[in-house]
């Protein structure tokens, strides 16, 4: 039997170490370390891969540094619309939600779709209604906002483009430009 293992990611983009202060870099490293270690501990306690990826992604959604859950980027109309998916490689079962705006942890809604619905992907209001029917609470859309992401939206609007997770430097790094 192979050794249990977890891998996580916090997104991609034009990250530049030159744009990150040591303090900011440490925040990212600390967040990634804590989450991967939590997953590692779960695996060592014989948790299922499905439970481990669910918890790891839930924790990433809770961290405002990353573009998911709290810290999600803004749409063109200054809201947050989130998508999530989860898949069990053992039974090839999958659950997903798209365009949800009021579910704190979209990955938990995706897990509910996997376990408690006859479907694979639910979207928008229907996804939210299903999640609520299964006991999830709804939250204000503004819960997901951060000043960094709003500034990123303003920059993208000005440039007339869309941007990946980390295509804009953090607010506290922009003022260092000469």
């Amino acid at each position, binding site marked *: 039997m192979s050794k249990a293992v977890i891998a*996580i990611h916090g997104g991609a983009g034009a990250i530049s170490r030159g744009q990150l202060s040591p303090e900011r870099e440490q925040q990212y490293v600390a967040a990634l370390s804590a989450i991967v270690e939590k997953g590692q501990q779960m695996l060592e306690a014989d948790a299922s891969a499905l439970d481990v990826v669910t918890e790891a992604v839930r924790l990433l959604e809770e961290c405002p540094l990353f573009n998911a859950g709290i810290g999600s980027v803004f749409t063109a109309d200054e809201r947050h619309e989130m998508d999530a998916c989860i898949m069990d*490689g053992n039974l090839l079962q999958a659950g997903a939600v798209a365009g949800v705006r009021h579910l704190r942890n979209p990955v938990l809604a995706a897990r509910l779709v996997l376990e408690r619905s006859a479907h694979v992907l639910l979207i928008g209001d229907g996804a939210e209604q299903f999640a609520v029917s299964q006991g999830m609470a709804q939250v204000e859309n503004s819960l997901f906002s951060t000043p960094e992401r709003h500034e990123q939206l303003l920059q993208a609007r000005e440039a007339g483009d869309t941007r990946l997770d980390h295509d804009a430097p953090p607010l506290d790094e922009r003022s260092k430009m000469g």
Partner: protein
Amino acid sequence: TVGAVALDSMGNLAAATSTGGMTNKLPGRVGDTPIVGAGCYANNASVAVSCTGTGEVFMRMLAAYDISALMEYAGLSLQDACERVILEKLPALGGSGGLIAIDREGNVALPFNSEGMYRAFAFAGDAPNVGIY
């Protein structure tokens, strides 16, 4: 976008991905994340994959499933399949990003073609590896 893939002590694979999408996206836009086989895929016979990047291109490529198919049908190793998809096919369609993947043998691949990616991995009982690239 965030994601996780894991292989547990029973040999089961799983993948999960979650995202707010792209900054300044049109309302109603759906990317690759919730599309099974595009941004997220797991199959005990091959691999678990979670993607991040320009979602529209990952959708057109069925990127996550493509890794699995290359391994299952063409016999490629995890590393070779990931390199084919992320370093050859993705940029050919103008896509940027990366993925994390674990195969049924417990091999780990973390390829990307964007300027950077945040990721980490840890084997049970070993020291974790964390990186900002």
